[in-house]
């Protein structure tokens, strides 16, 4: 039966001294009685020792930090960079984008103004009644007022001439 990845990682942590104290003894016992675990631990140990040996060989002309920073830069240089990072938009493209954004913003403002209506003048309407052609109604929604004009003489008890009725 093949060892599961969790056990393999535990074995590696044991080798690196990164295992909690409580697990260390358990893994040591496991390695002692399991040949597969012993073989894998041996392989991991050999690789680690080989790498440690290679580091000892190096006679660095620079400081350790500078040498490894160079290695890092080399690695990064070999990796392909994302396309978006490599290409920077030209000045013309940037201006075009700015104009498109500004135009869109102006359009939205214009539509909003038209929806609200002309500045300083609230919506209003006037109408004359079909049933009574002598009456004329004017509504001002902004002032919340309605004016009714009666163009013919009303009954004597109300008024002698034209009368106006204001409803609010």
């Amino acid at each position, binding site marked *: 039966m093949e060892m599961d*990845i969790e056990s*393999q*990682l535990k074995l*590696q*942590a044991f080798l*690196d001294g*990164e295992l909690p104290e409580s697990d260390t003894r358990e893994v040591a016992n496991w390695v002692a009685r399991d040949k*597969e675990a012993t*073989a*894998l631990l*041996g*392989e*991991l140990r*050999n*690789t*680690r*020792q*080989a*790498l*440690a*040996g*290679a*580091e*000892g*060989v*190096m006679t660095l002309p620079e400081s350790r930090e500078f040498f*490894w920073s160079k*290695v*890092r830069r080399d*690695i990064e240089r*070999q*990796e392909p960079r994302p396309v978006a990072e490599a290409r920077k938009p030209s000045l013309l493209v940037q201006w075009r984008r700015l104009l498109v954004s500004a135009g869109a913003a102006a359009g939205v403002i214009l539509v909003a103004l038209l929806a609200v209506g002309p500045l300083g003048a609230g919506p209003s309407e006037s109408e004359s009644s079909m049933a009574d052609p002598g009456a004329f109604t004017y509504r001002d929604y902004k002032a919340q007022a309605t004016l009714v004009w009666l163009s013919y003489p009303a009954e004597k008890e109300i008024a002698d001439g034209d009368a106006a009725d204001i409803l609010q």
Partner: protein
Amino acid sequence: MPVVTVNPTAGLERAELRQRIDKALSQLSYEHRTVIVLHEFEEMEYKEIAKTMGCSIGTVMSRLFYARRKMAVLLADLKKSE
């Protein structure tokens, strides 16, 4: 993946060992190479590597494990092709 039982770098001259390790490292992916360099040469702990590489400790452990196993195979192959 079968375990590499023989030490593939045993008895090698130091310069040759270095050359082989360089060659094997160059065949690893960027993530595997980085985790090997940080752990084996910079002597960082799992937690520090996770912080440096911006990943979880579990990911570091997994990458390090597969990087080491790949290195073992690559070094064994280089030994065979002598």
